């Protein structure tokens, strides 16, 4: 199956969940409807598509200009040796998307990082907690509205009983 026919087959299988297909410097990109991210990725994870690896999950902040956050998923299929990029936009007002926890084991940490850095809520996440910063950190540092140099308040030491 060539790359084009693979994308065609994925489109046919996912139906309206796919809002568009793009090519980015030679790599295929699928634009998904945010509400369908979890079911669509669950389908892609299984044969015949067999994208068994969630390579990466990150987010891009387009809140200022376009009023949205874009989630970027990278999948990898070991059997076909191909990668696939998927994107889904969520509104900047209340960014939320379904969690992938339960489909891939690394999703839990990847989503915690995106929550920490961008404030995107992952619905159904078993442990929504900051990953790289700490409890008590104010704001989400990778948002464009967060200044590059901003001092955080000092936290009081926690008393241990």
């Amino acid at each position: 199956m060539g790359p084009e026919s693979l994308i065609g087959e994925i489109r046919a299988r996912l139906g309206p969940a796919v809002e568009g297909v793009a090519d980015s410097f030679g790599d295929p990109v699928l634009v998904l409807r945010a509400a369908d991210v979890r079911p669509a990725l669950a389908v892609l994870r299984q044969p015949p598509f067999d994208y068994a690896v969630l390579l990466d999950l990150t987010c891009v902040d387009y809140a200022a200009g376009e009023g949205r956050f874009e989630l970027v998923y990278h999948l990898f299929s070991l059997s076909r040796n191909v990668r696939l990029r998927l994107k889904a936009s969520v509104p900047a007002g209340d960014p939320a998307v379904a969690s992938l926890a339960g489909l891939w084991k690394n999703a839990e940490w990847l989503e915690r990082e995106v929550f920490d850095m961008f404030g995107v809520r992952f619905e159904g996440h078993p442990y929504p907690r900051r990953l790289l910063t700490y409890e008590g950190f104010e704001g989400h540092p990778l948002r464009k509205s967060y200044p590059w140099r901003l001092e955080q308040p000092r936290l009081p030491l926690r008393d241990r009983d």
Partner: protein
Amino acid sequence: MDPRTRLERQARPASLLLNMGPSHPAMHGTMRIMLELDAERILNAECEIGYLHRGFEKTCENKTWFNLLIYTDRLNYVSPLINNLGYAMTMEKMLGLAVPERAQLIRVLMSELSRVSDHLTCLAAMAMENGAFTVFLYMMKAREFLWDVIEQTAGARMTTSYIRIGGVRADLRPGWREALAAAVRGTRAVLKDVSGLLDRNSIFIGRTRGIGAISREDALSYGWTGPCLRSTGIAYDVRKAHPYLVYDRLAFDVPVGEHGDNYDRYSVRMREMEQSLRLLEQTAALVPEAAPLPAGPVLEPDEAIRASRRRRASGRIRLSPNLEGSEKERQPGLMTPDRPVGVPPKEDAYTTMEGLISHFLFFMNGKGIRPPKGDVYFSVEGGNGEVGFYIVSDGSDRPYRLHLRAPCFHAVAALEQLIRGRLIADVIPTFGSLNMIGGEIDR
């Protein structure tokens, strides 16, 4: 939100809660492992990372494409050249650049030297924490052999910034061939010694064999790549699966393990170093001797500047020692000819008006490298696995978004599962075999 961690909330009242780290001699860098214990048995574990978070991705959004290269040195600080390479090649994919053959071969040399030093560091620390201090000293010695070769050419051991967008900064230093051969010989001898000390050492086997084992399905589900994934028997290596540079022309094997336990991770890394040494020898044989620089008088920079006021200067100019190897005559082999991506030759900046203008245009805000709009992902095989860069450009002189796919992030995410139900002593070799690198995981 409840400030208590999941572990604290779920712990049974009778359990002992214990922190390993963030400051613990076995937590290379800083990481906190919270343990719920029943005597020595780990009932539950939770890892907390982020102690070395420096805002790498945020910082990059505020630096120009050229200037942010130095921050990539500080990701996986044991093999900085591979991070340089990953970033440079991602940019080259976006800019559509072809890199000269000589620069590609030098990049392979540097990647493999870094890979060996990365594996050496991982295994040295892992062995030391298991009590094999001799192995630690032997392997650190071998790492020095390799870093000497890197230092001769790149000018630094760790903060190299040597692999640049479009090529490499400088040519290999004269005498590199002998230095590399000696380093390879020395490292081989050390690997042989270490094999003799550890491969069938019953203490080492007792602490590694069957411990920290993971199934293939789980390894894939955790997004493992690199030696950790290969230890489970899956021969996925970016250099083979998606060849870059000249790897498709070189002969090397991808060693795999069987059980995905600590011992297999050790053994895969040991065998991979052998392959990397093999690659170093093959690549060194492919690099042609550098043509000697043209003979004739060498002008001091101030003389050249004075002379150039009357007529266009000819002949060579003595450059400062830190520019050794990047003379104008060497550039065609090292840098892509599409100029605006590399620093213009210093000789031109000294002596010609056009050279000075292009120098300023390269470094001025809003000028310099400006890739087209769009987003791109590219990855290379790092010491820990697939080092991927996801970069979004809005067409300006700095990234709109830059994200690193850190391979050890995914490996360490599995640590909680690997040590659950084991003994405290098993945390040490398991954690050591995953090769957590603070700069890479926390960014």
